[in-house]
């Protein structure tokens, strides 16, 4: 059914359609509306056979999820940013134990400095924990990915994180098509655990594993993600057949067939990128875009195929490997191992800074002219940066950096872009 609704609400409805049995969450901007939405549905009886637990921290949220999943319940939680870090130990634990928990990440920057707006640093911090990570471009895809996520998680016995841009998607009203319960039930059968805490058949979950066997357990986790490389497209194809639209998969290509320049990105920014691609195509540039949906497992082979014929690749990242540069770029470079082409990393949108058509237009034109640095910080305010560096060179007691910069830049409210 078509609806005009907030992204969080659309996701809440999708979760409800998946017949979750235990939901636990702790509030953090910007995911709160999702959990509030599901919580309301449980409380007013719309969502039945579901335990909704208000936990006392994100660490508790993932812990409750672990217990519930291990005892055979389809389990869901959501968090962002600081909350994801607070549950980090349990995030690794869930993957190590092979529990098919589904979690939404309302992508938000990690502090310090504290920042509530969107970037991908939170999901990136957990990229090697063993969870599958899927990134949504639109709210429709966000809701669709949750349905695919439960199926994927349960088939593989591997937890899945569905990542959607905080505020940009979570708090945006968009047109979405909410699927029918019957279709979701046909796509997503009841949960059949691979392991379960059951007095009738006792097992020990979470035993200590020494050097003799740890590598093998880890390898099996890696192997699981490699299998996901074929399972993800398969489930996406099945989804397309049943629900009538493309959602998910490993990557999506846009006007890449004869492209000399290809822009790669994750999440909602791809929409803006596509608009700029169209504009530049109008003026004769051979440019295209690739959005990565499955960041873990990282789709090395299909990316190689999509990018290998281009002259240059621009990786637009909403995250930063401090002291190195790009995170997504590293994976791209690996995909292109042995292939000679120009690769540019662009760090953009950190802490919610808007990525505008005009900035991207200029950026892509510079890339096409090969007038870009290896690593570019899009729209960096060089004046503010150099002033701060100068200040620090002059004196020792320069005070907190963030405060100094904010004072220099004046009121935030007066700026629009």
């Amino acid at each position, binding site marked *: 059914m078509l609806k005009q609704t907030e992204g969080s609400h659309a996701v809440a409805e999708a979760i409800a359609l998946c017949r979750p*049995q*235990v939901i*636990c969450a702790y509030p953090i901007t910007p995911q709160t509306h999702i959990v509030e939405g599901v919580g309301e549905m449980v409380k007013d009886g719309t969502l039945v*056979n*579901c*335990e909704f*637990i*208000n*936990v*006392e*921290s994100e*660490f*508790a949220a993932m*812990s*409750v*999820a*672990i*217990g*519930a*999943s*291990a*005892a*055979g*319940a389809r*389990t869901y939680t959501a968090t962002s940013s600081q909350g994801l870090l607070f549950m980090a*130990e*349990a995030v690794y*634990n869930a993957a190590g134990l092979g529990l098919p928990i589904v979690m939404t990440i309302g992508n938000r920057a990690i502090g310090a400095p504290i920042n509530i707006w969107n970037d991908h640093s939170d999901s990136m911090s957990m990229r090697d924990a063993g969870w599958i990570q899927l990134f949504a471009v639109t709210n429709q895809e966000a809701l669709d990915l949750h349905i695919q996520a439960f199926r994927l998680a349960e088939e593989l016995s591997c937890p899945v994180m569905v990542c959607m841009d905080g505020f940009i998607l979570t708090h945006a009203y968009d047109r979405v098509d909410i699927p029918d319960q019957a279709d979701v039930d046909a796509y997503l059968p009841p949960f059949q655990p691979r392991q379960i*805490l*059951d*007095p009738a*058949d*006792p*097992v*020990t*979950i*979470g*035993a*200590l*594993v*020494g050097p*003799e*066997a740890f590598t093998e357990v880890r390898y099996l986790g890696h192997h699981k993600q490699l299998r996901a490389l074929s399972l993800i497209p398969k489930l996406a194809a099945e989804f397309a057949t049943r629900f009538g639209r493309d959602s998910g998969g490993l990557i999506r290509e846009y006007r890449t067939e004869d492209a000399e320049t290809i822009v790669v990105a994750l999440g909602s920014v791809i929409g803006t990128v596509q608009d700029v691609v169209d504009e530049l195509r109008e003026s004769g540039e051979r440019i295209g875009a690739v959005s990565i949906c499955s960041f873990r497992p990282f789709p090395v082979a299909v990316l190689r195929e999509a990018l290998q014929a281009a002259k240059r690749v621009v990786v637009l990242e909403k995250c930063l490997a401090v002291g190195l540069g790009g995170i997504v770029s590293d994976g791209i470079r690996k995909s292109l191992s042995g292939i000679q082409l120009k690769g540019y990393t662009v760090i953009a949108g950190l802490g919610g800074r808007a990525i505008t058509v005009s900035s991207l237009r200029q950026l892509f034109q510079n890339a096409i002219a090969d007038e870009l640095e290896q690593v570019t910080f899009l729209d960096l305010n060089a004046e503010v940066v150099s002033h701060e560096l100068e200040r620090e060179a002059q004196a020792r007691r320069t005070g907190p950096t963030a405060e100094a910069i904010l004072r220099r830049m004046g009121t935030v409210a007066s700026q629009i872009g």
Partner: protein
Amino acid sequence: MIEPGRTMPNTMQEVKFYQTGTFTVGNRLLKENERAVQANMERTNSLNSGHRACQGCGEALGARYAIDAAMRATNNQLIAVNATGCLEVFSTPYPESSWQIPWIHSLFGNAAAVASGVAAALRVTGHTDTRVVAQGGDGGTTDIGFGCLSGMFERNDDVLYICYDNEAYMNTGVQRSSATPPTARTATTMAVGKEPGNVFGTGKNVPLIAMAHFIPYVATASVANLHDLEFKVTKAMSMHGARYIHIHVPCPLGWGSAPADTIKLARLAVETGLFPLFEAEDGEITGRTKIRRKAPVEDYLKLQKRFAHLFGSKPDEARLARIQANADRNIAKFGLLD
């Protein structure tokens, strides 16, 4: 705590044993249904032999007593959640497990939360007869697990949480926890300097904190008093909601005591008043086990090398007096002497 003049009932346990000399528990004198679970050849032995606990480990004893009692009380429909710590490590050395029951180890600070999750799943999948017990040491309960514990209490989740208190982080090499008693030597409160051993802090009484959450049942127990421990576990499993039992378990390695002295030390802790045995429901104390023959704290402390620096050629009279004062305060507060 207890108003003067108001008589409190003793703990409602029917039978008490008093032992002198030998450690034989006289089950032969009791009717079958009054005997301890441990006396029964058909006991579940949920924590089976072959685990790697130290000789004389109080925690292994406490866990076996408690879980077997819980299994009998629940007709063997029990799932256990275990925090990281000695019990978890020695009971599941890859590739073996001593546990005869469904058991999950999650992390250090979240046994209470994981248990809450298990309980929720059991509810929603219709397994209403299967019960949940969470286990942790003092480190995993009073320190790193404190937040999750309080959360579980506040939500009144249907979990019995058992803390095995050996008064330090033993598994990692005997470091001080918030349960470590004053003056005790640990690796992070060495017996050197002007104030050797742990300092005199304000203490953190988790059973009292549990009572402040007004949960259905709180009790303290000791491996020296098997019947009392089994009674309390059984009673706890007859209730639903959040329940907490704090069991005092001597650790020969960490305490520097003889492995053969474990039960003796546990008894002395109770008889000195340093470890009061009591029960509470909904935030009010409902019973306590009186001290039969009060012992001075020295009798307890001098058997443990972790207190050795209090004795010797120049005993630390001042600090011994403070420890005695703590014991006496407990006795008064909980009405442990007639």
